[in-house]
């Protein structure tokens, strides 16, 4: 697996050769800095650690300051580890990885945190149908969950029963998004479809091969 850390910029649409409108997400991907190379001898497994996104020095702990200084870079917001980074993209400590590791037309996965929706009822949170009728004796139970269990047995509500609560803000992965366009000079990826999270949120872009 190889990949990058990116930032969601926004959505737009482009037209393909046949004139079809393709909804697209623009992602600022990289340039990321290799801040650590883990090897079997020293760490027990192989991976590379990359960092992305400027951060102020005064908001950085001394431990991280030293870590970034060693890699010869400024403090970064996001640090992420990729295991089994592809051999042909094998990177050295302090290297800079950009969007050039991808090619147009290939498929990637994008990981992000979905938008937080706050405390939501069961209709929005779990797709319950609600009562579905405003008449026939109903008046204030349009979006109610209904019964949560029987009475004498089991005399309790089963664990894990789907109820209202905090919704959104989960880590989600969108798989098989096609890269429509790569804008090298601005480090931008234009991918087909949507990705999780609000504009400006950080994303992990993965490619399995």
């Amino acid at each position, binding site marked *: 697996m190889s990949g990058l850390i990116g930032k969601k910029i926004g959505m*737009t*649409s*482009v*037209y393909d050769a046949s004139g079809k409108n393709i909804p697209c997400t623009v992602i600022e991907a990289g340039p990321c800095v290799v801040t650590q190379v883990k090897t079997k001898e020293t760490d027990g497994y192989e991976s590379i650690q990359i960092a992305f996104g400027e951060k102020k020095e005064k908001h950085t702990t001394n431990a991280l300051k030293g870590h970034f200084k060693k890699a010869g870079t400024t403090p970064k917001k996001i640090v992420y580890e990729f295991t089994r980074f592809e051999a042909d993209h094998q990177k050295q400590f302090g290297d800079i990885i950009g969007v050039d590791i991808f090619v147009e037309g290939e498929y990637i996965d994008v990981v992000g945190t979905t938008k937080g929706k706050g405390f939501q009822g069961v209709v929005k949170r779990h797709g319950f149908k609600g009562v579905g009728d405003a008449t026939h004796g109903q008046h204030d139970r349009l979006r109610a969950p209904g019964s949560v269990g029987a009475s004498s047995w089991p005399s309790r509500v089963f664990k894990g029963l789907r109820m209202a609560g905090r919704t959104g803000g989960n880590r989600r992965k969108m798989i098989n998004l096609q890269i429509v366009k790569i804008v090298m000079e601005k480090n931008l990826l234009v991918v087909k479809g949507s990705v999780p999270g609000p504009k*400006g949120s950080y994303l992990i872009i993965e490619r399995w091969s």
Partner: protein
Amino acid sequence: MSKPELMQYVESLVERKEFPSFKAGDTITVSYKIKEGNKERIQQFQGVVLQRSGSGSTETFTVRKISGNTGVERIFPIASPFIDAIEVNKHGVVRRARIFYLRGLRGKKARIKEKRM
């Protein structure tokens, strides 16, 4: 670069044809390419612009015409490669940017005063 600037940069890469400027209330003719099998022909759609909506490469505009006795509205994406040409026939005098009130008007009431250029 900030997010809006980056979005603008990406949208500037999308090819766009140059069209004459028009706004709500204008009467325009849109030449629209239609593919039938292997053949391609051009269809004209003439009517009043109800609104222009959105910005950048996702901007669209709505054209309304009366066909027979029925109102017909079509929404065109302005960056669509199928739009061959847009011709402005008349500039209209309207006070708002979205003239949906036109939908409720018929016949003589649905006229729009022409702006003399």
